């Protein structure tokens, strides 16, 4: 199963990026293969609007099944639910720490967005 973690860097010891739609990168970790790839999210960092929607759609295209991030707004959450991606929010310091929280069962799946919409 592939897990995406929002991050400002490109490695397992990089900081977790608390933002979802405008996160700098996503580290996509394969729990079976124990390998990862990095998805560059620069395009959405600079989007005028709809960053969360597009980021969620990109993760769905990458075959991600779970997401660990800091916060998630309503439109991104709607897309993630439609894409059957389970959302977890975490305040872990690093990508590795967030992955460990997920593997140990310390995180509960988010049932709703935890941020207001930026637009309406």
């Amino acid at each position, binding site marked *: 199963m592939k897990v995406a973690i929002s991050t400002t860097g490109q490695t397992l010891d990089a900081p977790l990026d608390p933002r979802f739609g405008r996160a700098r990168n996503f580290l996509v970790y394969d729990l079976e293969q124990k390998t990862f790839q990095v998805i560059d999210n620069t395009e959405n960092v600079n989007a005028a*609007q709809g960053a969360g*929607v597009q980021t969620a*759609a990109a993760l769905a295209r990458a075959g991600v099944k779970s997401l660990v991030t800091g916060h998630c707004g309503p439109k991104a959450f709607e897309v993630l639910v439609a894409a059957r991606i389970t959302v977890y929010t975490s305040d872990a310091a690093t990508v590795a720490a967030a992955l460990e929280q997920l593997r140990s069962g310390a995180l509960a799946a988010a049932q709703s967005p935890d941020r207001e919409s930026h637009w309406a």
Partner: protein
Amino acid sequence: MIVAIASGKGGTGKTTVAVNLARAMGSPVQLLDCDVEEPNDNLFLKGRVREAHTVTLPVPEVDATRCDGCGECCHFCEYHALACLGGSVLVFPELCHGCGGCTLVCPQQAIRETSRAIGVVETVECGAITLVQGRLDVGVALVPPLIRAVKAHAQPGVATIVDAPPGTSCPVIAAVTGADAVALVTEPTPFGLHDLGLAVDTLRELHIPFGVVVNRVGEGDGRVHAYCRAQGIPVLAEFPDDRRVAEAYSRGELAVDVQPELGELFRRLHLGLLGLTGGRG
């Protein structure tokens, strides 16, 4: 002739100048309140609402039975109002700017347009002044379409004053486009000067003739006047920093009603704006 009252900085006196200019003209005039996020010309002009129209934007609706999930609409939409997931499309109407492009690019003709209300345009009769104002719905972020709707409700061929929103962004462009001349209201302060410079750059880019109105002369310093001299920008009117004007404003009264001697200053401002158009108006 259409004149617009604009400013880079907010709070310099656009509304005061616009409503008093309308009153001082004395002849039939229409005042378009294009500050649709907070229209307040109506606080100074009491009248009867003659018409009210809801303004809508076209937004996409996807027929799931026709959509094959190709993603053309999502790639086309610059505003990310559509998201494609697997075989289906999600629509976010609040992100849609209403261009209609998705309906055109859909190979399956699976998208039709429905309406989303964004605000109202009201026409209010206030004696010689016909006030047309836009009022944006709470929570709506898309301003220019409502401003264009306000302007579309104006009668052609009638003297028109546009009260523009502050700043230099899209709503301002939407408000001043089509004006024959613009009065930029500023105050003689460092903030007033800074934002006046931004507004001047904007109007030069738009090739609309403009002049400056300096409000609350007496406060601040002389740098706005020095800037206008150096740039060759005409100062069309100067209004002194007068407590009586502020007191009338706080009661919702017009300065020219309370101090009729101010009427001459506004009539001269009107003539100055006419002069900027080279007599085209």
